[in-house]
């Protein structure tokens, strides 16, 4: 009897110790040093032995393209690539949690303005061939995917908004803003509207602000201590909003002009001019509207509006087990041939200089319209302070549009709010 009970106790203790030892073992995982790291000094990059990669991509056509890329990459390098659908908006956030635990993709797509925080957290690896990319890609795309003077992204698409017009209502695209407003106010009648844009959204309004000389952050969007959103140019740009309100859409509150309203009106053929991005093209085509896209018309001072551009790029997860293979994949899918394929499948404008001149793109008037606007576009700043800018600016534009507050006063207040917030964020 005595023996049996001792045995029982022993078994109990053994199980307990095993359970606890299993807990203890976890501790050692993050201690592992990455021994492959130093070999990468060699510029010759070859996939690691037994590498397997995962690629995150948006859905629909992007996914279709990504799957094709995975197949081609395996064919060329013999490295299997698994594709998983994670939107480019979600990817940076998921990287923060899934990266350290080893569940994130090795390569993923993100828009440049959302990746800033992940980069500043050290979750993304630098582009391995920065010199090559700087030579071969549009400057705006390189600026957008660089961070503190270091290139991180492998740019795959650039987008900006431009002027859409309904070719049934308007014969020729206006050259200047005055012309646009004049035509638009003539066309406004009953249920039909000449021109609409979201007046409280800095993303769109920035085109005017920038055209007159305003800017968000100085030094190409990197100097957070230099805000240019309440300078003379910004005020002039905001005053243009008031002209639009009075001449084209009198009596409308900015809350009434939503994205849904605008697109619905355009699809019904009841809106002549619309400022929108490439994402709207497919919907308008499906609605059967005859339309064309041209650069935003010149401002009174003879300058072109400087729209915000967004760059979609691929990034390599810093926690990848196969940094070389992953960098190769990112490089592979942004090479000339594959970006052209991306354009054909998804319609994304490739930021590669060679491709801009390509016949396939030059023969499509809509793409040409966006590309021309892109040459005037400014990348949205990608500093982590950028999110602090949107809301105060929206409040300022709302005040000006809805309550006739003096533009200078409203912008000063917004800039003050942003400065305080930036200061507080530095804690």
């Amino acid at each position, binding site marked *: 009897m005595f023996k049996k009970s001792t045995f029982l106790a022993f078994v109990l203790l053994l199980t307990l110790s095993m359970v606890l030892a299993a807990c203890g073992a976890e501790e050692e995982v993050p201690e592992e040093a990455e021994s492959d790291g130093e070999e990468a000094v060699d510029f010759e990059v070859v996939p690691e032995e037994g590498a397997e990669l995962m690629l995150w991509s948006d859905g629909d056509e992007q996914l279709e393209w990504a799957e094709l890329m995975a197949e081609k990459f395996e064919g060329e390098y013999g490295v299997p690539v698994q594709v998983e659908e994670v939107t480019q908006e979600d990817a940076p956030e998921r990287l923060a949690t899934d990266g350290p635990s080893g569940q994130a993709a090795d390569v993923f797509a993100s828009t440049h303005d959302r990746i800033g925080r992940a980069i500043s957290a050290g979750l993304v690896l630098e582009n391995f061939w920065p010199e090559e990319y700087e030579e071969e890609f549009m400057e705006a795309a390189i600026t957008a995917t660089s961070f503190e003077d270091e290139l991180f992204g492998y740019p795959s698409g650039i987008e900006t908004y431009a002027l859409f017009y309904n070719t049934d209502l308007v014969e020729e695209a206006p050259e200047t803003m005055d012309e646009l407003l004049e035509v638009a106010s003539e066309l406004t009648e009953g249920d039909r509207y000449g021109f609409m844009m979201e007046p409280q959204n800095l993303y769109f309004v920035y085109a005017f602000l920038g055209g007159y000389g305003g800017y968000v952050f100085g030094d190409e969007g990197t100097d957070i201590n230099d805000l240019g959103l309440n300078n003379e140019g910004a005020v002039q740009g905001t005053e243009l909003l008031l002209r639009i309100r009075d001449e084209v859409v009198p009596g*409308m509150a900015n*809350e009434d002009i939503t994205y849904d309203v605008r697109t619905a009106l355009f699809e019904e053929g009841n809106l002549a001019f619309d400022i929108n991005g490439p994402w709207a093209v497919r919907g308008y085509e499906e609605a059967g509207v005859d339309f064309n896209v041209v650069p935003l018309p010149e401002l009174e001072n003879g300058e072109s509006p400087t729209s915000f551009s967004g760059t979609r790029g691929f990034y390599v997860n810093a926690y990848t087990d196969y940094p070389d293979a992953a960098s190769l994949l990112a490089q592979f899918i942004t090479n000339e041939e594959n970006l052209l394929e991306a354009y054909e499948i998804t319609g994304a404008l490739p930021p590669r200089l060679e491709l801009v001149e390509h016949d396939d793109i030059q023969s499509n008037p809509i793409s040409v319209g966006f590309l021309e606007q892109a040459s005037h576009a400014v990348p949205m700043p990608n500093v982590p302070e950028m999110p602090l800018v949107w809301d105060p600016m929206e409040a300022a534009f*709302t005040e000006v549009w*809805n309550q006739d507050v003096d533009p200078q006063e409203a912008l000063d207040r917004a800039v003050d*709010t942003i400065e305080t917030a930036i200061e507080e964020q530095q804690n």
Partner: protein
Amino acid sequence: MSNNLELQVSHKDKSHRKIATLLSVLFMGLGQLYNKQYSKGISWALFEIIALIFFIKPISQGLYGLITLGETPQVRERGRVVDPGDHSILLMAEGLLMLMALVAVLAIYFFSIRDAYLVGKLREQGKRVMNFKETVRNVWENGYAYILITPTAICMILLTVFPLIFTALIAFTNYSSPNYLPPRALVDWVGIDQFIRLFTMESWRGTFLGVFSWTIIWAVLSTLLVVFAGLFVAVVLSQKIVKYRKFWRNIYIIPWAVPGFVSILIFRNLYNGEFGVFNDMLRSVGLNAIPWLSDPMWAKVSVLLTNLWLGFPFWMALFTAVLTTISKELYEAAEVDGATIVQQFRTITFPIVMVAAIPLMVFTFAFNFNQLTFIYLMTEGGPSNANYTYAGHTDILLSWIFKMTLDNGQYAIASAVALVVFLIIAGFAYFNLRNTKSMKGDV
């Protein structure tokens, strides 16, 4: 005779208690060995040996990580990670787990000492000491409930308590964008700095009162409106005079069955001042259009009305169910006594249904207090308010915090705010539920 003997023994070995306890403090099991409980003593001792060999390293490392939150930052060279460095947040999670393991080990240690003490006491009193077999049986018989509850308790600690403590701990660090994000940078403990910041930060203080008072108004009104609308409709539909009662009930249930966020987005379009259906209807009967979403006051009204539309069917269903449980005889008796319908409602219906409703009302209040999704989908906090920072007229605390903190990667301060909101809600719920009849007792 036997009594005499016991007294003698206890007199002789008065110090059993002390010695056994002391020995057990020195090393687990020694006390038991001294008490001549060899099997038990050996098991305890084995446990301590195993613990010393296997746990000391992970536990001390874990605690060290928890205290320092990492010491070596990441090192990179040529775009490749050379030294991954310490990940403060992971260290914190591991350290917390190890802390819990340590507490468990210490608890076992404490039990072994207590056991030695108790057995020593028994010996002093000269009582018979249970042998090992009897002890095991005793544990099985008397501790059965504890053995059954152990898996649940472990799951609860790991799945509920651990994440809560973890979130709360974040509030005492400086985990935030852009300067304190792991793995590139280390995170540090900053004590109650985040809480101090909350009340000294200009952007917070200026807006806090406005948003906080609207949050209270919103939570109270939205709760009361849905409850009383639900009660009203349920009582009306329970009257026999009403024809096609089932049909009406089904119609009223529909809003509840439609996925909330779809209807919210549709409502948002219906409220549109220029193109919305509501204003079209107003204009068609010759009334002035209402600036539903662009005027601060009307925006608040719109939000409350939509919430009413979405929320009352649940309450109607609940009250309908409760009403069927009220005995008809009560009403018959009341009628005999000559009570009017209003009197019947006030003295019979209302008190009975409220017993069922109040705990749920408290939950609804807490839920609405944090109704981030609804506000976010409905107005995004708009119309914007230039006097607030990062908040609009209809922003409630949580949606404001969401914009200001999570959107901008201010995790530490977000967690501090979450703690503050938790205290408000928990305090409110606690006092309300404690004073509610329906939550007293199990039956």
